[in-house]
């Protein structure tokens, strides 16, 4: 066993700092505790996976769009604006 200088991270603590972990803003010492905990905790491993999947799914939502009528109105408005320029 290695000498552990800092107390182990709990699951509750891990879920609280997971965004800081993703953002890379977690201090080095906490990052080490985070990774040490993760390596031996199936629940937190699953939690991290769920969080990653959540973020991925958010990035894959189908794009919204203006209705064709609204788009046409917009181009008309543009022409009106240009006349006024």
């Amino acid at each position, binding site marked *: 066993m290695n000498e552990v200088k800092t107390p182990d991270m*709990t*699951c*509750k*603590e891990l*879920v*609280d700092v*997971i*965004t*800081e972990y993703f*953002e890379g*803003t977690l201090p080095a010492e906490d990052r080490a505790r985070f990774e040490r905990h993760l390596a031996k*905790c*199936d*629940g*937190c491993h*699953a*939690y991290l*996976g*769920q*969080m990653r*999947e*959540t*973020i*991925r*799914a*958010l*990035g*894959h*939502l*189908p*794009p*919204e*769009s*203006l*209705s064709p009528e*609204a*788009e046409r*109105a*917009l*181009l008309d*408005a*543009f*022409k009106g*604006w*240009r006349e006024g*320029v």
Partner: protein
Amino acid sequence: MGEQEASTGAEPDPSTRRADDEKLVAALRRGDEDAFRTLVDEYGPFLMRLALMHVPSRAIAEEVVQDTWLAVLNGIDRFEGRSSLRTWIASILLNKARTRGQRERRVLPFSFLQRRRDEGRDEPAVDTDRFQSLRDAHPGHWSRPPAEWSSPEETLSTQEARRVLLEAIAALPVRQREVIALRDISGWSAAETRNALGLSETNQRVLLHRARSKVRAALERYFEAEDLVR
């Protein structure tokens, strides 16, 4: 070009963006219709998504988006390039969408509660009853640990899961909704998001954290209800 409009948007190199912005802005000032169309194609879907975070219907969201474009045109001579073009456009839209959203639900006690919730005290990332208490063998460790989702990618691209996702976002306090829309739906960087929303670094991160945590919880409930866990 096609890459940039993807909602997953990896951010292009800032100097490339600045050069692209300058070209577009110059063309707009000349009244170039193609430049306007390019801009509308590139940012239209994003603006629509952002507007829908604030107002209750597509029709109103479209009005907000149209008003935004008019404000962009009328203000283009004043655009100085201190922020990126899309940050500037997003700030204009957000101003209009927030105002419009407030007008649509003018019930005061509700908006007061909403503001209180926005400040978000006492919001654990995960329900505290999922963890062991001080009386248990391992306080702070899972009492009911999350399970691995089975084929998450496939499941999360179904209509039903997307509805769950959108409903979870709609239920978030406004500021959390804005941050998650820019960061995760549109793929903006923390810096640009902070800039567009006028947030401190910590605030941005806290809002993102709360938003993601709640959306994850909603998806977890969905996976468990559908028995899609391993």
